[in-house]
């Protein structure tokens, strides 16, 4: 049972939701899937005066293919991303990440927007969004702005979202043909949160790419692989990538599951795995076309 009382609102349009946020400001909390918000309210860790549910809006839950990008509504569930053909054909790493979140019940209800807005450092989506160069649409009553994934994550559990703004859409540019992608996570058992998460894209016959690693700093770390991959994904390239991952994960914090050293060491292992996987997929694709 939640102990502190609050007012509940279930707007039926985005405009109505934005007016409520404008009116209640910092005192309001947006409720999407509730898979994070409801437990932390039950635990008394957050005590909003108003809860604005997005569950009765129409829209904001579609996956739409456009010419150069795919637009995903913030309310799309993990289950939708796991099973949607447009998502898995354009961004296999995104459906992979979605399918490794929690368990079936969490995936049925939890949303992409909710996970990104919560900005847990070990969540599965943030590294994927960085590696893909996604852009986030933030809307308030005073208008709309588009923020790059790299500018959206500001600090531990902190994003560029203002209290009067909703994350409405995630736009992901289509990948150039021959790009291989992969996402992976280190976790203890099926259904548990990641300790280290990683995502990679590899293009240009293995000479260009991006790697993003979560769980090793307050916000995910993005590494441009181009300078490492001048000679392709050689052992030497893996060695320099590993040292950069090690250095860039110095801000990792220890938690109940892992020490800093373990996280940093495993970040190197996960980086290697996810890159190898993306390289393999890029090769397979290149071979076909």
């Amino acid at each position, binding site marked *: 049972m939640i102990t502190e*009382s*609050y007012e509940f609102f279930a707007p039926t349009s985005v405009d109505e939701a934005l007016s409520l946020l404008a009116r209640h400001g910092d005192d309001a909390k947006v409720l999407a899937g509730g898979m994070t918000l409801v437990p932390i309210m039950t635990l008394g860790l957050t005590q909003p005066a108003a809860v604005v549910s997005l569950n009765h809006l129409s829209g904001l839950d579609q996956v739409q293919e456009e010419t150069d990008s795919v637009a995903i509504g913030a309310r799309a569930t993990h289950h939708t991303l796991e099973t949607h053909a447009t998502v898995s054909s354009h961004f296999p790493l995104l459906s992979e990440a979605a399918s490794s979140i929690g368990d079936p019940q*969490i995936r049925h209800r939890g949303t992409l927007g909710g996970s990104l807005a919560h900005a847990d450092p070990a969540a599965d989506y943030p590294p994927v969004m960085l590696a893909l160069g996604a852009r986030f649409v933030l809307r308030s009553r005073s208008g709309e702005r588009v923020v790059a994934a790299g500018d959206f994550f500001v600090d531990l559990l902190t994003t560029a979202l203002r209290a009067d703004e909703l994350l409405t859409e995630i736009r992901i540019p289509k990948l150039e043909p021959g790009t291989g992608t992969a996402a992976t996570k280190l976790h203890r058992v099926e259904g548990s949160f990641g300790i280290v998460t990683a995502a990679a894209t590899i293009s240009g016959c293995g000479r260009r790419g991006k790697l993003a690693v979560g769980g090793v700093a307050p916000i995910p770390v993005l590494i441009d692989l181009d300078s490492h991959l001048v000679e392709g994904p050689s052992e030497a390239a893996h060695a320099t990538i590993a040292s950069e991952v090690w250095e860039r994960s110095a801000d990792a914090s220890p938690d109940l599951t892992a020490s800093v050293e373990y996280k940093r060491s495993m970040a190197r292992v996960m980086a290697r795995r996810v890159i190898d996987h993306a390289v393999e997929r890029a090769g397979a694709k290149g071979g076909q076309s």
Partner: protein
Amino acid sequence: MTDVVKYLVSFEVNGESHRRDVDPRLLLVDMLRDDLRLTGTHVGCSTGNCGACTVVLDGKTVKSCCVLAADVEGSRILTIEGMSEGPDQLHPVQEAFVENHGLQCGYCTPGMVLSARQLLESNPSPSEEEIRRGIAGNLCRCTGYVFIVKSIQAAAEATTTDKRPSAEGAEPNP
């Protein structure tokens, strides 16, 4: 602290319509158990981890401790009580759990059975790994899962065999 402003919701549970003025703080699981006296839905953790509170909300399993009662306007909910007509007409999944020792204390069982049902609806002949992934959101402290997996395998077999006669002549079975 704000005064409690109640919120009116209409919804359906196990085919029966309800209309209730709820305290926004009320969790769906508490409404089901305390107000509707459907105590087959259990509470293990209240924080989304154990799956004892699993119900089917608009066709998909969810953890009802993470859903606000105020948020179920227009929804159709199925709880374990609505899964069969009574003890003599158990659902094939329930039957299989009974036959195969898929439960000991029974605390996790309602959630486990609903997750198994959901899995078999989308995947009538799951592999062992698919079964284990399908029940990953339901913790059991008693069985060690082996007999639960066996029960779900048996339910899958029973339901695919059951369907065979009516499917005869229509489509070949893969």
